[in-house]
């Protein structure tokens, strides 16, 4: 594993979009881990401590907001970027309130590369 390469945990229940996100992250050299639910995301995070978590909001079981709160509770260093198909103010506020680093709409997903690059 390249120690300089950032690790990104992708949590999304849509396989197609997960695949798209993986390709984008890998295109900037990140190492990618994937999961489909909030619980898996928390579990993977606690085990692998990735640099970034790309968190979808609506998943089966534990939702993205709650999973973000769990992760942030376990490590204040964690960086969770909420990547979602919802653009409502309420969701955005809830995500930031849970401790999210950033909030990215899926139709503008490519902007995540910039966020990852700027904050490295």
């Amino acid at each position, binding site marked *: 594993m390249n120690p300089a390469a950032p690790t990104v945990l992708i949590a999304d229940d849509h396989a197609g*979009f997960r695949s798209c996100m993986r390709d984008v992250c890998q295109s900037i050299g990140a190492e990618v881990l994937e999961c489909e639910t909030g619980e898996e995301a928390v579990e993977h995070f606690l085990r692998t401590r990735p640099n970034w978590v790309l968190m979808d909001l609506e998943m089966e079981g534990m939702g993205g907001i709650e999973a973000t709160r769990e992760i942030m509770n376990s490590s204040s260093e964690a960086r969770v970027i909420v990547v979602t198909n919802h653009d409502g103010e309420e969701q955005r506020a809830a995500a930031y309130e849970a401790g999210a680093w950033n909030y990215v709409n899926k139709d503008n*997903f490519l902007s995540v590369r910039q966020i990852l690059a700027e904050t490295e």
Partner: protein
Amino acid sequence: MRGVLVVFLTLHLLLVEGLGVEFTREVVGPRAGIPGGVTGVVQDSRGFYWVATIRGLARFDGAGWQMFTSEAYPILETDNIMCICLDDADALWIFNLLGQVLKLDNGSMEEVTRVAMNNRDVSKMELGPKGMIWCQFRESGEVVMLSDGEFSNAEVEDEAGRIVDFIRDRAGDFWIQTREEVGLWTGRKFEFFSPPNLEDDAVSAIRADAEEGLVVRINRGREVEFLRATASGFKSEPPGERLEWMQSYFVASDGAMWITTPEESVYRREVGGDFEFAGRHHNRIVRYFEDRYGNLLIYTDRLVPMRVFRRRDPAVQSLLDFELLITRWSSRDNARNLGDWNAGNEVELGLGDRRLEIHFGALGPSAPGEYQLETRMKNEEKDWTMVSAGTRVQSYDNLPPGSYLFEVRGKAGGDTEFSQTASLSFAVPYYYWETLWFRALVVGAAFFLGAVALLWRKKALRERRVLERHHALQLANSQEEERKRIAAEMHDSLGQNLLVIQNRSQLGAEDAGDETTRQQFRQLSDVAKEAVAELRSIVKDLRPVHFSEVGLTSSLRSMASRLLDAAGMRFEDKLVPLENLYTEDKAMQIFRIVQEALNNAARHSGASVVELASSVEERKVIVTVTDDGGGFSTDEARSGQGLSNMRERATLIGGEVAFDTGEKGTSVRLELPRTSALS
């Protein structure tokens, strides 16, 4: 001398008859329905005439003679009746030729005693002191008493053989007569009175007086004197010019005296007046009877009809000589004869007894066809019904329940006024189902049941409407659920795929080696982006995002903002919080109504400003959507589905929608009851 007497009598007759005949003589015999051979006449306290004949007993009932013979009363061994009398209780005592003494009481006949007659014939009987039956033999004139089935003189042993006559006066006192004196029964013994200055065997006859005592005839040589005897002594009766020719005499109830003369004439004299000619009588007169109306009945011991001398007083308006009476009534279940009911009381028939027959008439033993009768049943008939001659009965079938007064009135015919009436009131009882209270109860019960049925029906209708509304709401909810499911499906599946396409197209454009390919990827990305936007709009229409979480007010606000922004109209937000007023189902219906109204405004009004306002009052909640557009016509509104959808949704949640449209814009007003929290 005899010629002078005849001339005198003839002149007198002409004079009397010329002045106006006060008496009419009628023959009452077989033609009238009563046999000849009359042996006795009495009139009971009710007014019925009882006539004993050698062919049975007869009673006049107002219309005709009713016979009481052995045919109807087998106990009567012969119809040949020797004499009759009445006791204090109005029972009729009968003595027949075979020695039977019978009592007829209220229609039933019983034998009291029986005596061996041994070819003797009794001409007179009376109930004397101590209940003894006094009799007089016809041939010998001997007076005897009937005791234990034997004739004897035990009770008046001292006077036995001296007694020539006995009589019960109108006061009920019992008198006996000897040739020398008269005796009055005082309760224990006879007290005798001897008329003053009496010669031997001077007392010749006694008759009952009008009120009390009796009139005693005294023979004083060729002269005849009458004394009125009472318990206090004798009083002389003024002599009359005709007394010297008198053959027999009779004292009437009003004190008047009747006499017959050898020339077969009958005279009558009022108290203090002169004798007046009453009529002729050709047969030997055996007995007289004067009824309570002053009419004289004469009968003989031969087979000749009875004569009735009817007194007619021109001074009295009534030309009826006898009292008009109701003599009998009978119904299906009952029959009563005169005297068996109290005339003052109402007769009540039995339940269901609706048939009535009423007999009536004047109880005079003379031609009943002479007078005219009319009847009327008050409460049933308005007019009087004339009764045909000879008919003395009126029948009614199936009388309705109620109170009635039967009336009969009579007059002597011609133009005379009706002079006598008799009446009988009676009641036909109601069956309980015919009574007013029962009918009122039935009507009341019908009303009550009707009211209950109406209330029940209203309640059922209300419950049905509630149920229908509930079902409709359930249907609407399931539609909402379906929309929600479709929206989620589109958002999470189709939307995500479009986003994949969009993002990968962008990646493709970045990685493309030539400009043409890059352009194509960009176009693909734009199309995908547009599709995502459209899809999001559709999804929001289908189901407001996070409706449950954000609540009605925010959902309304964001929906209005989105719709009006898209239409280029300004949104005037005057919403007050509507949370916690209604359940989510109802809140969703409110949302849909407002959504419909805002859609209409956005699409059709051409308005520049649209106001969405709400207010929460004590009893109601009002939400209005007002635009400043051009309005719409009622016809357009009717044809549109939107308005009717709004109304239906409002009804589902117990509210109403009102529309107000005109040139200055349109206002849609939704009014809902504010019941309880989350109702």
